[in-house]
């Protein structure tokens, strides 16, 4: 039972990391990037391509994947999302969804229906104190927490992070302060893309990389996102841990309900708190 809880908590770290990628983009550009799940999947496959087929070492492969993730994020922002600035929100939503279809199509085209386990996934179980944990999940959790702390520091202490927060608050104010809003958009998409790469590496260790991995990542990331609120970084972290725990508990008692539990939790929370646990309440005027 304790092991189940710890395992849920650790996997929750990965979920939180997936959700952080959404939050980062949403915070600055108010776009919900539904292609994020497939982005994770395609980067995972790319890593597999680099290591297993091209034969590069792990430590060369991971930075390469992170860089290409940033590049992909940048390209998506520049080519698909920026032309839609000012369009109704359904267009943007459909655009990111169609991007995810496109990425999935590329995955299926290039890698078919192969599934694989990343070659550097440590096998067996680690014993930390009284608990047995799966090594992949433990590593992911540590990385997720590290990235969360890094991100908090970025938003609090660096100029880039501060400008991102200004852009999130108000585009016009940001422009009048001399912040290049478009550059901030590009930057946040690039960072989100590199997050997707990190998620790809970590999720490849916890889950098996299959063609449905993108849907899986989306299916875990969205409930976490809504639970924490669309624009809250601590919310994403807390939401990830909660969903991870609840899912682990639920599948311990009711194994058939594993996929559906995050959505049900999300629905209940939304009925009670429409903006998520930590989300920013928007006051609307006519």
């Amino acid at each position, binding site marked *: 039972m304790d092991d189940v809880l710890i395992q849920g908590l650790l996997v929750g770290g990965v979920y939180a990391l997936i959700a952080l990628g959404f939050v980062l983009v949403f915070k600055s550009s108010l776009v919900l990037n539904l292609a994020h799940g497939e982005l994770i999947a395609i980067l995972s496959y790319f890593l597999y391509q680099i290591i297993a087929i091209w034969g590069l070492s792990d430590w060369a492969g991971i930075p390469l994947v992170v860089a290409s993730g940033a590049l992909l994020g940048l390209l998506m922002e520049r080519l698909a999302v920026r032309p839609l600035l000012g369009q109704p929100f359904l267009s943007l939503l459909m655009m990111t969804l*169609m*991007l995810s279809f*496109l990425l999935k199509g590329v995955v*299926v*085209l290039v890698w078919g229906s192969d599934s694989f386990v990343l070659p550097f996934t440590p096998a067996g179980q680690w014993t930390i104190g009284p608990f047995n944990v799966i090594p992949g999940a433990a590593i992911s959790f540590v990385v997720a927490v590290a990235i969360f702390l890094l991100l908090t520091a970025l938003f609090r202490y660096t100029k880039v992070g501060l400008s991102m927060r200004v852009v999130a608050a108000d585009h016009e104010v940001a422009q009048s302060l001399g912040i290049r809003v478009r550059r901030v958009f590009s930057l946040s998409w690039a960072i989100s893309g590199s997050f997707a790469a990190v998620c790809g590496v970590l999720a490849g260790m916890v889950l098996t990389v299959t063609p449905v991995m993108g849907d899986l990542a989306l299916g875990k990331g969205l409930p976490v996102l809504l639970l924490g609120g669309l624009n809250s970084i601590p919310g994403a972290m807390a939401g990830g841990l909660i969903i991870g725990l609840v899912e682990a508990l639920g599948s311990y008692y009711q194994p058939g309900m594993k996929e559906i539990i995050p*959505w049900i939790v999300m*629905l209940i929370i939304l*009925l009670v708190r429409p903006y998520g646990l930590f989300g920013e309440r928007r006051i609307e005027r006519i």
Partner: protein
Amino acid sequence: MMPSGVFNTRPQQDMAIVRTRAQWLLLAAALIFLVTLGLYLPQEWVVWLIMVGIYTVAALGIHIMTGLCGQFSMGQAAFMALGAYTTAFLAGSHGWSPWLTLPLSGLVAGLGGLVFGIPALRIKGFYLVLTTIAAQFVIMWAIRQPDWLGETYGLDVPAISIGGAALKDAQFWWLTLGVAAVMLFLAKNIQRTATGRKFVAVRDNDLAAEVMGINLFRTKLLAFFIGCFFAGIAGWLWAHHLLRINPDLFTFSLSLWFLAMIIIGGMGSTAGVVMGAGVIMLVDKLVPRLSPVLADAFPSLGYQIPAALSLILFALVVILFILIEPKGLYHRLQRIKLYYRLNPFSY
């Protein structure tokens, strides 16, 4: 805009859907054409027409929810499943008449829509979209569970018979055409009533609508109910067309297809919905024709091509429409008509 020299002189003319004699003639000719299509088209294309009809009905539901009332739904396929399973359960397992289950399918789907529409009062935008995605997964998960719904294997659905003989494809196409025409007429009329105007007011600014005395909760729920009712009717048609349904038919991608249809056709117009359904189904038809060609050209990719191609082609078509023609095909058609009505003057 009316053709040159034609003026409305009576209020009835102002309210009519079909305005001129030429339009009546065109409408009659189009209906006759569509009916006779069932007689001489090869079976493959009759089935295609049936699917266009079914998807049109479901997309009309999305049109009312999203196009008119601004409540985005990404769970339309699941509501279709509710309708399809209602008729499969009642007509298939309990021997009810399919004609009796037609309204029941719509009602069950509509009630399902009400349940998932309740959060719409307090949340909107992205949060609402995600709630409807949750609806898709929760409903489809629930349908897979009980064994009286056939779990993952699905249920058999009896064929509809008129006068003792089961309908063949061509006859089913006439049935689909009839149902689709009635639903189109309903959707078109809802748009023109007080309810339809309430929907539009809520879409444009729900706070302002509430201040003007529109009951937001009731209006949004009504939009969900009507939209999902349409989905249920489409599900009824689909179930009786396929004669066997299983949960894998009603995927999340299908829900997205319906959204793509109203985007391609143009938000807020019923004629656009039909066009959008036609375009999407044409793309769907293109895939099996294009894939052998591509498979010959790139033999190393071979078997993955059909699956990948359908995803990529669909995505590309929708992306192109969003980027190049964001107002949709219907808007373009209107522009062309306007141009020829005004020709040779530009105003």
